[in-house]
């Protein structure tokens, strides 16, 4: 195995006992990037020099005999919507094609403190709006399991870079499924934490009440370790929760005996790929074999999640994205003769069509005369969706579902039909509305493409998620499979 293929916990052991150096590790990662990046296209920006310098620092620390933390000297990739001081942060948008933040996002700061080696910034759907990374204004990222397919989105670059071993782990953000769905499509582990557990300060907002940062990793143990590093209260984020961050690795017991797992009947409907359906059924059996108790449950307001999401997320986005006007930073149309024309042309050219579609939708939902019927109504239904989960968690420790109804689709397949694209997030969106955590872990393959299993817990129930996901992983081999980085031959 190459160094870049290993997990963080494996690498930490090797670094700590000086079997390998951090610089060797970084070099292995960049060597891999150099050889596969044309096929995958995970990155908007590579930070090679900074990364090697940081790795050298860690090596110096090790050679001085100092102890290193679990993520120290280990390569990470950051989605390009998290601010990195002095490093381009574009949101994969023409609007921010030249934006270099003067400050670090809190998560980035935390990773630096943990000694992380930042490899580069990952491609994404523009402003995190999309489910395929085809909405990047720069280029589409490809699925390492079939480079003719999408990696999912919006955190497609973050997911693909982990799957293609271009990094050890990465950070993404999830507003309606943007971590879990690409994790599912790329066959890696992806966590959308409880709203408020990871600071949003420095995460370029799409929908403030839904956005949450989380990790992509090669196994569940790494996911718990990275979550240890990034979770916690941040005084710079008013919506960040004050809670004691436990050591999440203590939940990696491998034991799910007696765990009560709910299977929501609304998530097993027409439209889900039969192959995916079959794998989830096998997964449920697996959990039962492992000693968990699986029972059907109901989340009756599930069918409203998608419309509610597309009212609330777009309403917030219409306001959050208002600041991109060409006045202070980013793209500006220089041809305009007056300020209003400058605003209009800058935004017409700076934003792509999906972003504009959502801004218009959100502006409409907030307009006087429509506010009550759309925005306010959606807020009320959001409460009902949350109550569905509250009730279910009175009986269950975990709720289990597919992460997405299908495996990765072909590039270009859904770009003409936004509704089809939106449906890819049908199982993930409710969690953001309810503010609860969900993890996607590999649970098998359909026609050579990975399938993700989504496990859901109540607020601050990440420990339970790690426990269940880790136990499942211990009893399966899916996460050990490696992609071919070529166009898949369908037999």
């Amino acid at each position: 195995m190459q160094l870049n293929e290993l997990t963080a916990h494996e690498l930490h052991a090797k670094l700590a006992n000086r079997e390998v150096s951090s610089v060797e590790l970084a070099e292995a990662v960049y060597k891999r990037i150099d050889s596969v990046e044309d096929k995958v296209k995970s990155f908007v920006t590579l930070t090679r020099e900074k990364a090697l310098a940081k790795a050298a620092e860690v090596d110096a620390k090790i050679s001085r005999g100092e102890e290193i933390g679990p993520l120290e000297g280990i390569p990470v990739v950051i989605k390009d919507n998290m601010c990195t001081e002095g490093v381009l942060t574009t949101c994969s948008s023409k609007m921010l094609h030249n934006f270099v933040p003067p400050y670090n996002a809190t998560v980035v700061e935390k990773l630096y403190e943990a000694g992380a080696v930042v490899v580069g910034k990952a491609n994404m759907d523009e402003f995190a709006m999309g489910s395929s990374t085809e909405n990047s204004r720069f280029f589409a990222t490809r699925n390492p399991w079939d480079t003719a397919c999408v990696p999912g989105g919006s955190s497609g670059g973050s997911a693909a870079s982990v799957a293609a071993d271009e990094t050890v782990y990465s950070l993404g953000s999830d507003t309606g499924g943007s971590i879990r769905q690409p994790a599912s499509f790329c066959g890696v582990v992806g966590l959308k934490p409880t709203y408020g557990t990871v600071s949003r300060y420095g995460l370029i907002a799409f929908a403030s009440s839904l956005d949450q940062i989380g990790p992509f990793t090669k196994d569940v143990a790494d996911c718990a370790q990275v979550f240890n590093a990034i979770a916690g209260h941040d005084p710079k984020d008013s919506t960040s929760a004050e809670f004691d961050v436990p050591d999440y690795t203590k939940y990696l017991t491998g034991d799910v005996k007696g765990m009560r797992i709910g299977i929501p009947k609304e998530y097993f409907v027409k439209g889900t790929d039969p192959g995916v359906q079959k794998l989830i059924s096998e997964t449920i059996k697996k959990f039962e074999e492992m000693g968990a108790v699986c029972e059907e449950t109901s989340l009756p307001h599930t069918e409203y999640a998608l419309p509610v999401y597309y009212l609330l997320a777009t309403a917030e986005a219409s306001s959050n994205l208002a600041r991109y006007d060409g006045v202070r930073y980013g793209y500006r149309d220089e041809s305009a003769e007056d300020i209003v024309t400058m605003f209009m042309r800058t935004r017409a050219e700076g934003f792509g069509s999906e972003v504009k579609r959502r801004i218009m939708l959100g502006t409409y939902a907030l307009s006087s005369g429509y506010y009550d019927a759309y925005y306010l109504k959606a807020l009320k239904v959001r409460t009902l969706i949350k109550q569905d989960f509250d009730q279910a968690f009175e009986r269950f420790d975990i709720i289990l579902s597919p992460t997405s109804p299908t495996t990765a689709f072909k590039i270009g397949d859904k770009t003409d039909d936004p509704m089809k694209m939106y449906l890819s997030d049908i199982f993930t969106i409710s969690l953001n509305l309810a503010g609860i955590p969900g993890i996607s872990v590999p649970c098998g393959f359909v026609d050579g493409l990975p399938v993700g299993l989504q496990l859901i817990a109540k607020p601050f129930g990440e420990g339970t998620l790690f426990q269940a996901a880790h136990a499942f992983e211990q009893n399966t081999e899916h996460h050990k499979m490696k992609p071919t980085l070529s166009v898949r031959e369908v037999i």
Partner: protein
Amino acid sequence: MSTEYEVVIGLEVHAELKTESKIFCCSSAKFGGDPNTHVCPVCLGLPGVLPVANKKVIEFGIKTGLALNCQIAGYSKFDRKNYYYPDLPKNYQISQYDLPIAEHGHLEITVDGQHKVIGVTRVHMEEDAGKLVHQGATMASSKYSLVDYNRTGVPLVEIVSEPDLRSPEEARLYLEKLKAILEYTEVSDCKMEEGSLRCDANVSVRPAGQKEFGTRAELKNMNSFKALQKALEYEVERQIEVVEDGGRVIQETRTWDEVKGISLSMRSKEEAHDYRYFPDPDLVPMVISEEWINNIRQTLPELPDARKDRYVKDYGLPEYDAEVITGYKQISDYFDEGLKHTRNAKALSNWVMGEILKFINTSGLSVYSHEFPIPAANLAELVELIDQGVISGKIAKDVFKEMQVKGEKPGAIVEAKGLKQISDEGAINTIVDEVLVKNPQSVEDFKNGKERAIGFLVGQVMKATKGKANPEMVNKLLREKMQ
């Protein structure tokens, strides 16, 4: 016969709160500074930043509400007001919409000696915008404009009155009283010239007796109390003229041109913004406890009306004096300090309303300033010197002039310059005799019933004593001797 019209006015007042830091970040909220030096990523609205509410601002919001007799909200939140303008870095202003910090208050004004209660609809908190500096006269006519974001995020309270004001004068009186209250509460400096107090007015007219309000116009850009009254007078006249000519007042926003003395239409209702208010998802709602409200209530100072009552009740000051003195916190504080050193409140009030106000206006000094040469104790001493007959009122004016220059105590000035009043009957007697001898004609005139002649004779004695003779005593002696 011409119709009588009733004027209906409501005011929206913005006051900058004098906190150390801005409303949602740690940048300095100080006035001035080189352009774009009191800024950080948060108030610049850079991608990814988040606001965190300044607790002091909420405290000041509550304090303002309490000073205006409002109900304080137990649950309040911030909302976004969306509109595009280059002085607004996020293109939305964080404000409060349907759950303001305080509601249902009132304040009292005195119009022609009559008390009148004016309703305060609401008090809410919001962030200020930046400042545009155009290369030309307006943004449209400029090749470029510069933006200074120092003021962006400086905390404001907006105070909205009920449409209870019935004349431009009442509107000015309301604004003056509101300013006094905010000053006393020490939440704002209320400097109209620095823009820390700003006022918009909604004005309409209706035939007297009509129940429904007329169509209102919103007036902006009045930068002084005088301008407010003038602008309103102009607008009222304009609206009456429109109606008299058989026209209809249209709902619009108008801007006051101080130089030309006219208001101009800015935009009509059709062009009005749809602000698309919605709760700011970056800020959590505020839950305000009774305990916190009560603690803030404890810190409220004596407000202008209470001071006015005290002056009238405890010191027998005329209502008018009390009103004038309490109109400005510094004047009232000065007066209170003076009262510690003299019991003659009326005499003190005369000096304060006369010479002291004049001195403040011409010198531009604040009574709180170290350079202010006349401590209240010195003025009170002067009042006492007159009361005790040590100097006459006339001499006192000269002494006051000296006091302004060197900051000396009046007693010391009187001593050094030998200005003490001569109240020694023997000494005055001699001079009176001399004056009588020198002016036989006046003595004659007086004896023939010309009362005026005594004035001349008193004047002569005063002149001979350089004004130091006790005038009452001179008068008494002259009359005795001419009987």
